[in-house]
Each structure stands twice: as C-alpha cells, then as structure tokens.
C-alpha cells in the first residue's frame, strides 16, 4: 500500500525513557500515517508498552521528540482494573472521554460482539469481555489514531481472529492509523503494513516479510518464527471437499 500522500498522525523521533536510571527504551523512532497499521513486537520487557505510552504522551519525561498531529485518539491499555467502589456500567464507560449517542454505542458494542453486556457492571465482566468492551469504546469515538496494547488478551481463539479482522476493517473504514502491540506473530505478519521489532531499542523494522528474514529477528524469536509467513501467505492451489479428498483449484 502506498502511503506517501497520506497524513502523518504520529511521529516519534529518537525517544529514550529512563526509570530509576535504567533505560526502558533507547532511541526508538516510529511514524504512523493514515490507514496504516504499525505493529510493535518483541519479548517481555522489551519496551513495547512503554513505547506506546511515550507515543501517547503518558510518559512525558523523555529524551527525544514525540509529535502527535491529531487529537482524536483511541487507546486500549494493556490493563484496566476497575475498583468495586466505583459503580460503572459498560454504557457509562463507553462515553468516558467523549459523549456518544446511544446508537453509536450500540453499533460499537455490536461490532465487538458484546451488545448484550451494555447494562452490566464493568467490574463483573470476564477478562475477554472487558477487552471487547475496551476495543468497542476506543473505536466508538471514530478516532484518527488507535493505539492497541495487546487488545485481544484473554479473548477466546475464535474471537481473537474475528477481532483482528475487525481491527483491520476499522483501519480501512475509518482510514485511521493504528499502533498495535501484539504477541501473536501470525496476526502481526498477516495484517500489518509495518513491523517494528523491539528489544529496548529498535532491533529491526520494515515490511513483515523483510523483518522475518532479518537475522536479528531470528535471534529474538528463534528460527521457527520465520516460517510463520510461509504458513500464512501461501496460496492454496486446492481445496478440500467435505469427505477430505483434494479438489484441484479451477
């Protein structure tokens, strides 16, 4: 996809962030344009969430520069815990940062498959249900930039695929830029325009199929991780009939 004429939404330049004198990330740069999905991958503690928080301006004391060219931002944090003392229903949560009409709320909840939870207490939801509500809330306000920090954690396998498809569909429909953090290399490689592989710094970055050929990527994730794309990108030259026999493609 050519993005040359598209608006830049977010630019992080040489950002470093220190906590108690320890560098969490060093000299990370990235850029997100309209309609583009940029994915951060990397092992635990490699600074993926930190990078997202720097991009969003949650961490402010950084070295380097962060510029956001939009104020319409939707964020799905890695973890949201709702205290029991705060009685809040899904419907109240949906309008947290922006007033939404009832049908906007319904449509968004419907997209992530949790419309039936609308009047339930947020603290009574299961992990997967809460994730779906978080995603619904972030997309309901029609953002220009979506930042999703492991958005499908705790979601069942079938739901996971559907949600990633939804995310891709939303990026096309709203023409918004997406910064995605994911552990799921399969999804990353099949649904992303640009991959950044982090390990405290940017190990390697580029289009999915260039990244998986990178030696540093193989070092970080092991050789088997390189085969992921071949699993997903190969064209089927046949299909299976209901009894399992092979039908050559017409």
């Amino acid at each position, binding site marked *: 996809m050519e993005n040359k004429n598209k608006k830049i939404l977010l630019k992080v330049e040489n950002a470093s962030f220190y906590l108690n004198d320890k560098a969490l990330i060093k000299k990370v740069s990235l850029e997100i344009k309209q309609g583009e999905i940029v994915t951060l991958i990397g092992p635990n503690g490699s600074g993926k969430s930190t990078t997202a928080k720097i991009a969003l301006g949650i961490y402010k004391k950084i070295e380097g520069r962060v510029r956001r060219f939009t104020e319409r931002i939707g964020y799905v944090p890695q973890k*949201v815990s709702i205290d029991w003392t705060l009685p809040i*229903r899904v419907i109240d949560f949906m309008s*947290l940062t922006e007033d939404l009409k009832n049908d906007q709320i319904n449509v968004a909840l419907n997209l992530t498959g949790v419309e039936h939870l609308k009047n339930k207490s947020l603290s009574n939801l299961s992990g997967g249900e809460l994730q779906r509500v978080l995603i619904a809330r972030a997309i309901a306000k029609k953002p220009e930039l979506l*930042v999703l920090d492991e958005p499908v954690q705790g979601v069942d396998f079938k739901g996971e695929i559907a949600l990633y498809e939804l995310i891709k569909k939303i990026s096309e429909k709203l023409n918004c830029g997406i910064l995605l953090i994911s552990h799921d290399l399969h999804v990353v490689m099949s649904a992303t325009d640009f991959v950044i592989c982090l390990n405290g710094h940017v190990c390697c970055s580029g289009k999915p199929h260039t990244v998986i050929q990178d030696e540093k990527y193989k070092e970080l994730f092991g050789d088997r991780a390189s085969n992921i794309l071949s699993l997903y990108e190969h064209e089927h030259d046949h299909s299976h009939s209901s009894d399992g026999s092979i039908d050559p493609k017409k």
Partner: protein
Amino acid sequence: MFDDFFIRALIAGIGISLVTGPLGCFIVWRRLSFFAGTLAHSALLGVTMALFFEINIAFSVFIISAVLAILLLQLQKKTKLPNDALLGLLAHASLAVGLVVIGFLTSIRFDVMGLLFGDILAVNQNDLLVIWLGGGLILIILKLIWKPLFASTVNYELSEAEGMKPDKFNAIFTILTAALIAISIKIVGLLLITGMLIIPAATARNVSNNPKQMVIFSVIFGLISVLVGLFTSLKINSASGPSIITATLLLFIISLIKFKKVSDLKK
C-alpha cells in the same frame, strides 16, 4: 415553631450535605479518604491562624489546606515514603503545630471542642452566606470538570492518552476538597468532616449501580443524616456534629442489610 438558631443550623446542614455528597463520592472512588482527613486536621492550624491574624476562618483554613496539599505533592516527588506515612506525618504535624499555637493565644476565649466536633447551633448569617456561596461555587466547578475528572478517576492513563488532561483536573479537585473543608469546619468539626464525606458515599455505593445514581443517593443520605442528627440533637440535647455522623452510620448499617438482600437475590 423553631428558634432562629435551629433554622440556621438546618439551612447550613442542608447546604453542606449538598456538596459533601458528590465530592464524597469522588473521595471514595479515588481512595482519598485519608487525604481528606489530613486536610481536615490541618484546619486547626488554619483556624488558629485566622484568630491570630484576625481574618476570616474559612479563608484561612482554605489557604492552609491548599498549602498542605501542595506540600504533599512535593513530598511525594522528593521522598520514597509511602503515601499513608506522608499523610500521617502531615496530618499530625499540622494538628500538633495548631495546638501549640492555640496555647499562645491565651487572650482569646477559644472553643476547642467546637472546632473538633463542630458547633452547628452557633452558625450565624455570615456563615450561611459562606456555606451557600462557597458550596454553590464548588458544585458549579465540579459540574464543569465532571467529565475529565471522572475519566481520570476511572483510568489515569486512558484519560491522559485521549487528551483529558488528568493532572490539571486532579489538582482542581484537590483545591475543591480544601474549599469544602474550609466551609464546613464550623458545622461538623475537623474530626468529623471526613465522616460526612465518606459515610454517605459508602452507603450510596451499597444501593447503586452507576456513578450518577451513587452521587444522588449520597446527597439524599447526607440530607437525611443532617435532618435526623439535628432534630435528635434538639430533642435529647446531644452534640450536633456527632449526632449527624451517628445518623450517617445508622443509614450505612441499614444499607448493609438491604445490600445483603439484593446480593442474595442475585445468586
């Protein structure tokens, strides 16, 4: 039917409970009850300052509480002591300093009990003006900042990321809390104001399932407590502040019974 002083007490109490309801909810949600208590303790110093410099008590209490709140933010940044230790330090240090200063003010006849537990029956017209104007202003500001404040209460990072500027509104909220303590210190006293903030809100939590409902119930329970407390105090000649807080406690106990029934039904 009633004496003037009792009418004034009712008007003052109603005014205060209209403000403690919504503010108390935020204090419970944000786990700030100890913080509110600390600000209230510092009020003693504020009152003595007012007497010493002969300025308005509410104004002086407000200034001292606001200074204390800023001091706390600085200490949080500069030391590694946990929050509760810092709050305890500030609460009791300011209380002690206040008591020491009182000792020097021998020329002024001073009702320490009234300060600690409130003296709602000695409210004058000037106090009513402070309560209703100050309280009205607090409520208007709270209404204006409701959305960003609530968003930052639910999740700080989410509200920061989506441009709700949580730091700014948290600071405004702290100032509102200081202002509330300033206008209500004469009514319920510095030892009991935290109870007036927290107990009706806690009671409301037991019977509500969304934030607005909890605020409304919190105001209603505060109002009932003020009425019950004041009439009791008139009938059996008990201290007014403690009577009001005892009434909030009774409501809380009743709400527990109801709450248990509701959760049993859900099973």
